[in-house]
């Protein structure tokens, strides 16, 4: 009997994406390279969500774009369902592209202003022949609109008639129209108001459950990443510094993640008052000229000589929680987490499902 091993939906093997920076006016010589993604290995299994966190300049968006094919890898491999993208023919690439889709950050620039939302959503259905005949396509469009909680009667309307949150739903519907296996969500809620964010996050999570999708969820907000992810990875200056399950924010094993978690504000004044923040000094180094050894050493409060000379490898502990830090075992002593997690039972916040719909009604009643 042959045991079939579960094949990862997406695998990145030492992926590097470098951009040449050209200077000079006439000849356009290359004066430097931005090492946006500099050797990342990751894996996403079917039905799972990998959350990717990092601050600006860490390369997480570039990584997302490389996964869907918008950015060309300089070296390393992108393997989709066991097949290396480099080895695919043009036809294979085109059909695989359908199965890895993207949701963009800016809801105001990610929809063609001259197309109705029905056309926008129906285009992939038609292009890939997923339904035959105009009527079948239109019916599918209505299905998809309902799936993202928009009324099917909106199919004839144009993007400018909708709010940011609604446009983002249209973007989601467009991605779903391709019937993908994996959706790369590139900061999908960052441009939305807080209450709309919550609604869209809830939609994304419901869709994952109902359709068995995988997500690569890229964001800079720790809260939304934790909300939706099974695994969390932290990036800094093109490299992965930490990778593990949901406990990464609870008990970080890398100095940068500890600083990140301690800096992120928490909407609870009592907790905020007693937090001891780890304030990092200095600015982010340029991705054209990353520091030697560990990339974080220029800002790390506990860097030692070894950190400046030897880049630490990613080392996984028994619970599959890995960090690339020489001093990971000393962190509890040197950079203690200043707050204890509060177990769910004592939370007084309302569960997400009961978020009221119309703020208008709320301010009138109350």
């Amino acid at each position: 009997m042959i045991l079939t091993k579960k094949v990862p939906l997406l695998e990145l093997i030492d992926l590097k994406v470098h951009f040449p920076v050209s200077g000079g006016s006439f000849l356009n010589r290359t004066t430097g390279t931005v090492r946006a993604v500099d050797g990342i290995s990751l894996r996403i299994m079917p039905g799972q969500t990998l959350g990717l966190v990092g601050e600006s300049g860490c390369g997480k968006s570039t990584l997302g774009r490389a996964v869907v094919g918008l950015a060309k890898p300089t070296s390393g491999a992108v393997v989709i369902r066991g097949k290396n993208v480099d080895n695919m023919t043009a036809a294979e690439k085109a059909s695989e592209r359908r199965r890895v889709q993207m949701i963009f950050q800016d809801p105001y620039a990610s929809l063609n202003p001259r197309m109705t939302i029905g056309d926008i959503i129906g285009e992939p259905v038609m292009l890939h022949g997923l339904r035959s005949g105009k009527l079948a396509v239109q019916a599918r469009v209505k299905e998809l609109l309902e799936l993202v909680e928009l009324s099917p009667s909106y199919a004839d309307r144009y993007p400018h008639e909708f709010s940011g949150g609604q446009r983002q739903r249209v973007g989601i519907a467009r991605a779903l129209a391709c019937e993908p296996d994996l959706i790369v969500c590139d900061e999908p809620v960052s441009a939305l108001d807080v209450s709309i964010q919550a609604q869209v996050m809830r939609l994304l999570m419901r869709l994952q459950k109902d359709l068995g999708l995988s997500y690569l969820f890229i964001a800079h907000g720790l809260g939304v990443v934790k909300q939706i992810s099974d695994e969390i990875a932290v990036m800094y200056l093109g490299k992965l510094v930490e990778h593990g399950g949901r406990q990464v924010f609870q008990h970080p094993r890398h100095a940068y993640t500890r600083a990140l978690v301690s800096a992120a504000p928490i909407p609870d004044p009592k907790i905020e008052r007693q937090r001891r923040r780890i304030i990092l000094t200095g600015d982010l180094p340029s991705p054209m000229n990353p520091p030697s050894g560990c990339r974080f050493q220029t800002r790390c409060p506990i860097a030692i000589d070894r950190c400046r000379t030897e880049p630490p490898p990613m080392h996984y502990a028994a619970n599959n929680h890995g960090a690339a830090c020489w001093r990971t075992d000393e962190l509890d002593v040197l950079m203690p987490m200043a707050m204890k997690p509060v177990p769910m039972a004592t939370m007084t916040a309302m569960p997400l499902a009961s978020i009221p719909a119309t703020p208008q009604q709320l301010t009138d009643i109350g």
Partner: protein
Amino acid sequence: MTDPLLSIRNLAVRFRGERGDTMAVDGVSFDLHAGETLAIVGESGSGKSVTMLAVMGLLGKAGVSADSIFGCGHDLLKASDVEMRAIRGRQIGMIFQDPMTSLNPVLTIGRQLTEMFEIHLGLSGAASRKGAIDLLKLVGVPSAETRLKDYPHQFSGGMRQRVMIAMAVACKPQILIADEPTTALDVTIQAQILDILSGLQREFGMAMIMISHDLGVVAGIADRMLVMHSGRIVEQGLVDDVFAAPKMPYTRSLLAAVPRFDLETEMTR
């Protein structure tokens, strides 16, 4: 209870549009006391920024009406443009979200800082230059003397924001208004900036108004808060009280909508 530093009664701001007028601010009243930090919280379109722009006289007179606006001993509602200009910068400082558009890109940082001293405090030459260097050191800009010659685009986002803060507090104003000062910054830089703001507040004894949509930032830095929606104040009170026991459904839903990364929650799948 001493008199409030800033007192606003029934402020309303009306904007003319293609299809009729909108009330961006509709009957807002609140006080600010010396040394305290007041947060104005709301989502986009709530009117939180427009409120303070109107109080500062940055929207002009048209469309702005109120029963009274008193600040730092002046009647801000009736003040002329000249008077407002003197008050802005000298007694009320303001920092905005995007330092790149608030700093003049063709003037050096040094020039923009010394300008503050020259215009408002009448200092000149060596005195204003020293003042500028001291300010930059205060907000944590390294190599202050050499950086005076630099232009805004030569600074990183966090550094530019520090320069903006330096300009705003140059004349040791009584009130500092910060309009989403850290929204465009990374979390670790944001922590640095908020730290600087708290430190300056303590050092100069300033009152601060922090406009933000980020409840975490508000929880960390504010004493009192106003929650705004559609131009009105929905709820106000001490930060501890509002977070622990929000009275209005909108406030409750706003608080519930912020996902927490520090809690051991079960994934709702």
